């Protein structure tokens, strides 16, 4: 399981049309061994410095 560290995060309340049904949702910039990527967060909200685990491509959950 790939583990990353949250560099920044925000919760999107005003979503574009195609994602309106999912709002609010959290996205984060997370640092993985291969570099930083933008990901969606599922489940518990995360903060800067939290560890996240990639559960599917582009999708992460709080690791611990």
């Amino acid at each position, binding site marked *: 399981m790939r583990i990353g560290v949250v*560099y*920044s*995060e*925000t*919760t*999107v*309340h*005003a*979503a*574009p*049309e*195609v*994602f*309106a049904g*999912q709002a609010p*949702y959290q*996205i*984060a*910039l997370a640092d993985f061994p291969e*570099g*930083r*990527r*933008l*990901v*969606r967060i599922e489940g518990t909200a995360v903060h*800067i410095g939290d560890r996240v685990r990639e559960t599917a491509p*582009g999708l992460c959950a709080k690791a611990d």
Partner: protein
Amino acid sequence: MREVAVIATGLTAFGAFPETTIRELGAAAGRECLAAAGVEADRVDGFYLGCFAGPSFTGQNHLAPWVASAIGVHGAPATRFEAACASSGAAFAHAWAAVAGGLQEMALVVGAEQMTVQPTARTAEILAAAGDVADEAALGATFPALFALIARRHMHEWGTTREHLAAVAVKNHANGLLNPKAHLRKAVTLEKALTGRMICDPLTLYDCSLISDGAAALLLAPVDTARGLTDKPVRVLGVAQASDRLALADKADATSFPAVRAAAQKAFAMAGVGPDEIDVAELHDCFTIAELVALEDLGLFPRGQAGPATLEGRTALAGDRPINPSGGLKSKGHPVGATGAAQVVEIVRQLRGESGERQIAGARLGLTQNLGGSGASCVVGVFGA
């Protein structure tokens, strides 16, 4: 290279004008500009249109000759420049290069955008395409979301607070109240800005600029020509455009834009002045955090100090470093393709002493900073009275 001056300016009101067309908006600004200079349209030998997403908003492409011909400019090369929100900054930089390089004698720059013809949700999608569509927009990252990520990290790393962000909105709305062309002329209190509807935390509605329609125009000529046409030519002392990676994730430090630093360094060097000498500046406050990052990237304040300085009133009209006297994108409005040219219009009028109630007394040196996307394009200009 020849020294270039801005001879004349044109500016429509900014607001919601869905009943007109982008062609008519652009032409109105262009015609006002030529009339102010007393220059016939057939003297224009280069036409530069800054427009981000006219084809997406209005369905019309090949916009530059379409707008040029409505002004009466026929035959001159006419091209649309697209650099997201820095589109008319880019148009201005290229027009300057053509005149400075001796290729053209009279270049007309028009920046225009008409955004309110689409519903807000569709507008958000069109704007999101200024970021990385596959890696950002596809995940639901809107532009407010990208700048919220920047804000959150800036708060974490540099101690910036929600109050610091809100103070930018309060200040720019106070300035916009004095600008008859501004879209949203409304005083905003710190308390109101802090308790606005959450868009992408920590950014509320009051941290975001407006969706507007409008146009701005600039006429450029060699300084020698300019002196024969106006007694108040404003010299372009330095101008530079720079680029960077498109995606926010590809920037090592999300709290600083390398394109802004690079463009500023070149423009200051060309002008032979430093940030401390600037009397007045128009900065790209697409979000409140963007004005704070710009203040720090331009060297106007040390990193982490732009927020406290704003809250203390140092960037207000009466402060020692007045920023966005026009009201900025926050209050004046942000018709994306018009913004860069409109910033230059404000600075030119400030340096000519024509800014009425919001005039910065004795302003001799001015600066514009026009940002595209989340920092992938930037144009910085330095101007002298």
